[in-house]
């Protein structure tokens, strides 16, 4: 779930962690009632500042994805179907935004990009 976190990225680490966890909720990898790893475990495992993990968890709590139970840990809340759908849409848009930014950097035009996406979708790509 946390493979390839990138400390060099312009996206702060706490946000990267939050995004990974939200993606896991959206895809059902994390289910309501599941416990997140403790701040301490995750910080040691990922070799990052514990404050960064705590900040990520606080953000998720504010957005209603998890709840902090005093003394017990952090748990995934049951999110409704539309909230999960919203999150999936958000993930897809994030992906598209990243691709557009990269395309702009390379100076690709809209038709070129559209053709490339259509070509990949029509091919044997792994997407349903």
């Amino acid at each position: 779930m946390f493979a390839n976190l990138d400390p060099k990225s312009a996206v702060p680490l706490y946000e990267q962690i939050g995004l990974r966890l939200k993606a896991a909720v959206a895809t059902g990898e994390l289910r309501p009632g599941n416990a997140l790893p403790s701040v301490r475990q995750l910080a040691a495992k990922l070799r990052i500042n514990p404050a960064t993990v705590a900040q990520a968890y606080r953000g998720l709590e504010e957005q209603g994805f998890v709840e902090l139970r005093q003394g017990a840990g952090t748990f995934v809340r049951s999110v409704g179907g539309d909230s999960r759908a919203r999150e999936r849409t958000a993930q897809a848009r994030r992906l598209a935004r990243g691709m557009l930014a990269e395309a702009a950097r390379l100076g690709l035009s809209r038709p070129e990009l559209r053709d490339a996406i259509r070509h990949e979708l029509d091919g044997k790509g792994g997407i349903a």
Partner: protein
Amino acid sequence: MTSAIETTGLSYRASPNFAIHDLSLTVPAGALYGFLGPNGCGKTTTIRLLLGLLRPDAGSVRLLGEPVPQGLPAALARTGVVPDRPHLHPYLTVAESLAFHAAFYPAWDPGWATRLQRDFLLESDRKLAGLSKGEMAKLMFLLALCQRPDLLILDEPMDGLDPVVRRDVLGAMLDYVSTRTGTVFISSHLVHELERFCDWVGVMDAGRLVVELPMAEFRSGNKRIRLSGADTVEPGRASSSPPPFTLLARERDSGALETWVVRGWEPQMTGWFEQEGIVIREVADLDLEDGFVELLRAFRVGEQAQRSDHA
């Protein structure tokens, strides 16, 4: 007490060719402070001054609020140190060195020491003389952590260790700081290592402090900006208004494109480029290592200019 470490105007001449100049460091309590600089820039000398192992020619040091050297015993009782070279007795066994070390520290945590010894695969009856470099590093971390210090001072602790050992010792250190509010002061010339967890950074070069600030500020203030139409602009010339940021480096890309590396960047500064008739193509963050390298490069050019002014 707000600072775990504070030095004011610290100066120390180590040799005819090398000195620490007017060093003022402030390490806030609770910070994970990365102390960066190239080899030989004075990091280890500074740490030795902090710990009272060297006496400064001028200036003062406070360690955990205690003046150095008068308050050293009180401060060192709460400070865990991993020095650049292990100082343990080679003829002791692992168990003996643990018992020896524990005797000096009232807050020693025997339960954790046992657990870490097991996690680190350090067998009790091994003689220290026979430990590998990685095993020795793990033992040094274990000793420093299990005394439950308020301040950890680590001098190039990851230098020459394999990735497995690095993960083990860093994991243990971060586990420790997540259970209590301790301060970590960690020196390294391996910048990328510190990027993951440090929240403060101090950079030294040639015995001087180049910069000291929160990591987030260091990262957000350093940018690489791609521009077009900048080729006719000379910032600082009378014809153009001086830029509100510091230009660290500038290179010509293909055609009319240029890349500027700047420091002290804030979003509203795009206005300056508009005013100069320059078009911004892209503003990207510099990672810590790039920021560090560009900063040192610019610092050295400035130093050299100053020296030739004096000459």
